[in-house]
């Protein structure tokens, strides 16, 4: 009996070890490209020809100044930050205003507007680039910040999200505000907006991620280095620093750090947003 118990314990123990080994192996595979990038980023050009490049033998941030300066990542990061923040502010403002009107106001054209927003929701940006590029060219917008921002200042999904959030506010609260003599703008500012803060936070996070990661549009409307965003700046690196993969990897990691920080800080909003997205939209 005692031997049996011991055998079971041993079996359970080795099962546990096996579980951890499997987890560790899978984690190593998933993480490998990032690990390799971190290693390559710290090595010099002459060390790249061998597998020793994967050995974590030092912490060397020497290529960071080169990436930020010579490779212009500093400028690209600033451009991306400016453009993304502007897009977030624009999307939140237009979504809150339109979402409130669609939730609570009775007006001519309300149904038509809902249909138009729904239609916009299913039109991919890639489909409209031909004409949007033409529009921006005609307005002289190539290599301007506004051309990078303006097309994204309204976000159909954001309008729907805000409308849903406003509709979820208990009616009693709104009625009480009306009794207290608030008009619509007063209700929006003092009652409704504070109650939908978490939706605004989730919308801001998603809108920032989408804006920061944009590739196609910034590629089309910028030619000058001083207007390029970080994502398209990455591709230019091979030309700017030649074959120095270390600098290229440093730059690539630098482009990810702002997103990493945001995700760690707003982990809960992200998870809630994504799970809500899959259940409710």
């Amino acid at each position, binding site marked *: 009996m005692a031997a049996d118990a011991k055998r079971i314990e041993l079996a359970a123990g080795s099962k546990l070890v096996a579980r951890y080994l499997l*987890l560790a192996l899978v984690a190593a595979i*998933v993480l490998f490209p990032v690990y390799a990038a971190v290693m390559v980023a710290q090595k010099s050009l002459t060390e790249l020809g061998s597998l020793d490049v994967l050995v974590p033998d030092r912490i060397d941030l020497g290529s960071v100044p080169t990436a930020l300066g010579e490779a212009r990542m500093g400028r690209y990061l600033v451009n991306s930050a400016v453009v993304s923040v502007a897009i977030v502010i624009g999307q939140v403002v237009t979504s809150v205003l*339109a979402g409130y009107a669609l939730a609570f*106001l009775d007006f001519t054209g309300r149904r038509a507007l809902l249909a138009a927003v729904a239609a916009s929701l299913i*039109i991919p940006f*890639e489909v409209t680039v031909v004409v949007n590029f033409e529009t921006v060219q005609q307005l002289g917008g190539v290599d301007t910040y506004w051309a990078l921002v303006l097309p994204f*200042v*309204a976000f159909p999904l954001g309008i729907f999200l805000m409308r849903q959030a406003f509709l979820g506010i208990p009616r009693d609260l709104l009625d009480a505000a*009306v009794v207290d003599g608030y008009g619509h703008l007063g209700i929006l500012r003092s009652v409704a907006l504070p109650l939908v803060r978490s939706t605004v936070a989730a919308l801001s996070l998603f809108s920032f991620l989408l804006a920061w990661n944009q590739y196609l549009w910034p590629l089309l409307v910028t030619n000058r280095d001083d207007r390029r965003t970080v994502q398209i700046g990455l591709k230019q690196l091979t030309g700017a620093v030649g074959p120095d993969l270390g600098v290229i990897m440093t730059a690539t990691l630098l482009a*990810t750090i702002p997103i990493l920080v945001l995700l760690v800080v707003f982990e809960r909003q992200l998870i809630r947003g994504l799970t809500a997205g899959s259940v409710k939209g």
Partner: protein
Amino acid sequence: MAVKRSRRRETRLATALVAPAVLILGVFVLYPLLRTAWLGFFVQDPFGRNSRWVGLDQYRDVAGSDSFLNSLGVTVRFVVLTVPTALVLGLLLATLANQQLRGIRLFRIIFASTIATSVAVASMLWLVLLEPSTGIVNQVLEAAGRDPVNLLNDPDTALATVALTTVWQSLGLVFVVTIAAMQSIPEVLYESARVDGHGRVSRFLRITVPLLGPQLMFLTVVLTIGAFQSFGQIDILTEGGPQDSTNVMVYSIVQQLPLDRGAASVEAVLLFLVVGALSFVQFRWLDRRVHYGS
């Protein structure tokens, strides 16, 4: 709402509130779609001059052309290579991480980590790994005594390799969405299935997968639409080559844009028909859930 005011006054306020959104959506979404469809009726010389009305001829010519059929085929293959693979692998990661173990949080963070990468970042990471002369893939092959490979430069392997990088980048999203739902499945269900003699695989297929239905549906639509819109990974990794073997629809549209606006417009409209139909299905499904669901 209890506010009863004249409809006229509400219309004036509503107009002011919706004006910014309407203006932007009108100028940058709805108008471009209509104008793109319109431009498809005209052929242009390569200098963008001498537009000539040709009716539906250009639509027919482009839709039947070898280059369009190639990019449609490449795109569909790309969807087939990426979407099921990302779903299955992400679901396996979630299953693996859905156990009560000390330190499991660390593994969950690692499995979710690729959500922090953009398409461009993921592509750059893999570009450097796959770099033919100093890339790590070839270093490993050399150490193992094998011949070096140039996966992105071979028409037989380029698309699958781009797909691999895309699957890797999507893993985090699939993982995050499915693990959250998996954790909310009551343990009792698994217990009673075990009592009924169902093995691990059977429990996974009969309990986990069906209960994750909404999440898997959401992910399928999101990943499929995303795959149809792929551009960044192609631009960074292969530029559509070799021999057009990775020339997906959006890449082809962007290539045509400065050369032949009419043809680019037709391709954009055809892309819209495909993606629009998919989005419509998603929207209907989502709408129903909002109305009749929780």
